């Protein structure tokens, strides 16, 4: 509605003027409900709750400005155009003019969401910040079965699958994965990209189904937007690695449903091609077309290499592109010298994503795998059966949980508790829970902490012995030395501090003694007794002082602050009580067992 025109009886200000119900919005936009919902989703406009619901509590309200924002959306016109076009097609069909209908269908108008993405996420960081929901949705629809009833086409499922694999390949390539948590719902991952923590949830490999209580139409609309968003994000990320975006994959691997592996190989190959490329093309004309072609050829050559040594392929790549922070380095070298083999029954997709992200080399049972089960150099065999058939002595047979726990702890945990055929493995702890804040540390978390401390001591004295050949040696050595010297310094500091404290205490004691002796000079005859007495008298004094010092701030505080302080105390007490309760419960449990 234009500003200058206000119909009679319409409010000028207040909630009645600022908000309109959904049906009013439909009327003013002249669209149907379906289209309106669609527009709202792609445009990011959501209902509000006005303070005063003028039309009643059972209505949904939208802000007037939101609606006028929709009114100026070019997509609205486009949707109308599409609608009229559909009518044409219908008419042709009704008149049994099949040919015309087919012809019309080939020339259907389409729409793009690029502009909207740019509008909603003006910078790349904005997009990354809001990627959680997007990733979860895309991962979910990648495993849903295509269905006619729900209007979910095979093409879209494949697209989702492709996008999710591209994302995973990038994350594992840049070693940006930080946390993994296997819950009942699915597997939570957390990655860190450009300082943003991105958390997403992927479903378990168990088949997902369509449920009645979910409106899949709405979800599909969301998915449409998210697909576009993720495609652009992937594009940007891949280009930051100097890799062409819509990746060209090895068709053989793709057919074998090993997309992720194919993708990682593709990235390796093309980024390597890029680094090599200047030498090759320096003499020849460096036209972009030529370069693209040569690169393509190179990539294809890479694919044609014997697939027995992808590890070698990976290590050939010079990692220059990013200045890595410490955590990334730690993540990268976690599984560095280990070789994994996945059994049939373990969640392959997840592990194929996680293991390379932490520097491990991995293979699986099936065709197209980089190495076979009987490879001698395999160090760990991931298995989820009560017993393996043929056991190699050279490798350890562990349950998949071991990998997740190692990843979360950032050290290689001892495998005894995770061995195949043994009982239930130790509990899988959530890395998203901050134990310190919670105040309660589970047993296993404590053992892990101890192990971590031990590992730090182990690793630090010998920095970069096995890594020298692969990493930038000087840098790593330097870092190692730095951290080591720092550690040593810290330890020394601590020691000196402790000594000083001791000294100080001794001096204090001496002074006290002096005082006592000074005050009771005449009783020189029994110094021993006096000393004891003096100490005794000083002890309650000290307690008094301590209490005073504790009370001092409370006395100094204003009443308001004191109240607040008390409230805080109560909260802390409650927390500690709950911790106590948990401990008690645990004790009871143990007693029962």
């Amino acid at each position, binding site marked *: 509605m234009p500003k200058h025109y206000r119909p009679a009886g319409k409010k000028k200000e207040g909630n009645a003027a600022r908000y309109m119900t959904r049906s009013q919005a439909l009327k003013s936009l002249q669209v149907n409900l379906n289209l309106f919902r669609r527009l709202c989703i792609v445009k990011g406009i959501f209902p509000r709750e006005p303070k005063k619901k003028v039309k009643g509590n059972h209505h949904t309200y939208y802000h007037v400005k939101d609606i006028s924002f929709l009114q100026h959306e070019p997509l609205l016109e486009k949707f109308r155009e599409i609608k009229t076009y559909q009518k044409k097609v219908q008419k042709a069909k009704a008149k049994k003019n099949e040919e015309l209908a087919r012809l019309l269908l080939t020339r259907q108008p389409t729409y793009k969401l690029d502009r909207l993405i740019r509008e*909603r996420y003006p910078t790349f960081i904005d997009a990354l910040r809001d990627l959680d929901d997007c990733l979860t*949705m895309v991962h979910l629809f990648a495993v849903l079965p295509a269905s006619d009833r729900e209007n979910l086409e095979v093409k879209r499922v494949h697209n989702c699958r492709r996008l999710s694999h591209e994302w995973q390949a990038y994350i594992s390539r840049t070693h940006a994965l930080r946390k993994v948590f296997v819950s*009942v719902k699915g597997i939570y991952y957390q990655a860190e990209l450009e300082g943003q923590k991105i958390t997403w*949830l992927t479903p378990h490999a*168990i088949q997902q189904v369509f449920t009645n209580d979910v*409106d899949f139409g709405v979800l599909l609309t969301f998915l449409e937007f998210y697909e576009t968003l993720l495609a652009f994000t992937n594009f940007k990320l891949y280009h930051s690695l100097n890799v062409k975006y819509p990746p060209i994959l090895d068709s053989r691997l793709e057919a074998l449903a090993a997309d992720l592996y194919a993708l990682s190989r593709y990235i390796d190959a093309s980024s390597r091609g890029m680094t090599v490329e200047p030498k090759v093309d320096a003499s020849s004309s460096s036209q972009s077309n030529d370069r693209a072609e040569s690169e393509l050829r190179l990539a294809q050559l890479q694919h044609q290499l014997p697939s027995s040594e992808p590890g070698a392929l990976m290590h050939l790549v010079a990692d220059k592109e990013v200045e890595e922070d410490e955590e990334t380095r730690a993540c990268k070298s976690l599984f560095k010298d280990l070789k994994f083999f996945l059994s049939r029954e373990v969640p392959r997709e997840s592990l194929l994503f996680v293991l390379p992200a932490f520097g491990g080399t991995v293979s699986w049972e099936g065709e197209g795998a980089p190495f076979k089960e009987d490879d001698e150099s395999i160090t760990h065999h991931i298995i989820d059966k009560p017993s393996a058939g043929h056991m190699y002595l050279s490798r350890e047979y562990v349950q998949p949980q071991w990998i997740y726990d190692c990843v979360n702890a950032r050290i290689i945990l001892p495998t005894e508790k995770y061995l195949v055929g043994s009982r239930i493995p130790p509990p899988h702890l959530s890395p*998203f829970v901050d134990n310190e804040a919670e105040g309660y540390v589970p047993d296993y978390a404590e053992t892990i902490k101890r192990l971590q401390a031990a590992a730090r001591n182990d690793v630090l004295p010998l920095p970069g012995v096995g890594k020298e050949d692969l990493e930038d040696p000087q840098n790593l050595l330097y870092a190692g030395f730095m951290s080591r010297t720092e550690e040593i310094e810290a330890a020394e500091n601590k020691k000196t501090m402790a000594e000083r404290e001791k000294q100080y205490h001794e001096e204090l004691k001496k002074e006290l003694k002096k005082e006592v002796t000074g005050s009771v000079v005449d009783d020189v005859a029994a110094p021993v007794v006096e000393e004891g007495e003096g100490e005794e008298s000083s002890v309650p004094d000290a307690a008094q002082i301590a209490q005073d010092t504790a009370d001092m701030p409370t006395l100094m505080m204003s009443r308001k602050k004191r109240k607040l302080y008390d409230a805080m105390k109560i909260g802390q007490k409650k927390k500690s009580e709950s911790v106590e309760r948990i401990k008690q419960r645990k004790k009871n449990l143990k007693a029962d067992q």
Partner: protein
Amino acid sequence: CPLLQTHTFLSSLSLLNQTPRRRERAPERDSEMGNRSKSSRKGKKAWRANISTEDIEDFFEKSTKDALSGGNLSAAPSEDLFHVDKSHDIPVKWKIEKHREKVLRCDSVLKKNPFVQVVSSSKPKSKISKKNTNVVESKTLKQAQKNVDDGSVMTDLWGDDDDDNNGEHEKNPRKIWKMTSTIPAVEVDPAGCSYNPTAESHEDMLAEAVAQEMQKVYKAELGPEPVPLTIDGEANIEDEAGLLSVCNRIINGKSAYFLGVDNGSEGEEEADAENESSEAGNKKLARTTKRVTRVVLNKRSRQKALRKMETKEKLKEKLSKEIDSLPKILKEIAKDDKEKQNKLIRKKIAKEEVLKIRPPRLGKHKYEAPPVQVLLTEEMTGSLRKLKACCTLARDRFKSLEKRGILVPSKNIRRSLYRALDKKKYLLILGKPFGATSDKPICHFPEKCAESALKFLFRCSVVAASKYKISNYEDFMWVTKDELLAFFPEHAEFFNNTIVS
């Protein structure tokens, strides 16, 4: 004959030419007519001989004039008549050049020195449009480049952020879209929801799940009892009016359910009646009392005055007391104010806290939290392979959208088969089934559908009224699933299988 032809031609011409003239003359004629109406019509002017032939004469006059001057002007094309005078126009191009050529003196002075760069004294006006075109050009250029080296259609959406940050607007673009709530898009489950949790945290989560379930149970128990769908009693279905009687019984049952209230009101009425009768008795008694004497009246009036005085004094005392305690009252008021303020703050904080857990009320229905996804103790196997498939992620996503206030929660999310069969009613017909041997009407499903009951159940609600002529049957009835089972106990198993529930 040619003469006649020319004459007719002329007359037609005259007619053509007359039309404007006539229009011109119309007012004159009117005035004439006005005069005529005033005077007698029997005068000379009414005679035919006096009708003016002016127009014809005019025409001839004009045509001769035209012939003399060299043709009718109105017939001539406008190009011949007029011409555009371009002698004083400045050509557009020249105009612009002139504008450009005008060099200010200060500029021209500077221009003489080749080492001094000329700074134009005025800014170009069309900066915005220029910038736009630039952006478009660069974009297209980039696109072209990308297309060349990628072979793809995609472009970097955020690519030009770094390149052309001319102006704060580009550098710090306004983010239009805002988050609807503080709830994160992907909430990580607590530790107890792990597939292999520690015993303590698992117990915690189980307790939470149990609490959720119990809340539902308590709510159901404390709420009002629903109206019963069926009433106990013998249903005589074989009877002709069986169905109707059942119907009536149901209706009666409902009405009986509401009758309880009515009974209460009746009781009140009775009580009222009793009150009235007692009052009547009192009046009789009053009439029998003694008359009031003058002495008594005086006494009463004195007492009344005394009472009045007393109350006045009391009021005064009270007022003085209140004035004395003014500071106290003020303090009380301040205290009240403070309390109110605190209450307000508390309310605000509580609201914010609530918004962290669930969305504001956006529509007709409240948001209902999904159940906690936690394994039961016997389901904990410690193996990923044997993990129970308990929920699809789609539901979780949907609930999350609702929780963040992006979608409006709704009860009937979609018309499912389950709901259609459970809530919709089925048509039963009382009449002679097709191919029946006996004459006695039987209660049955409409024909055609009996063999494929499921299909029928699905369609009947739409078809029934129009397709089946109700008049052919003696009676019909819509029944719910439960009633259907009650009518055909012998087919109960079949129904249970076909009707999803």
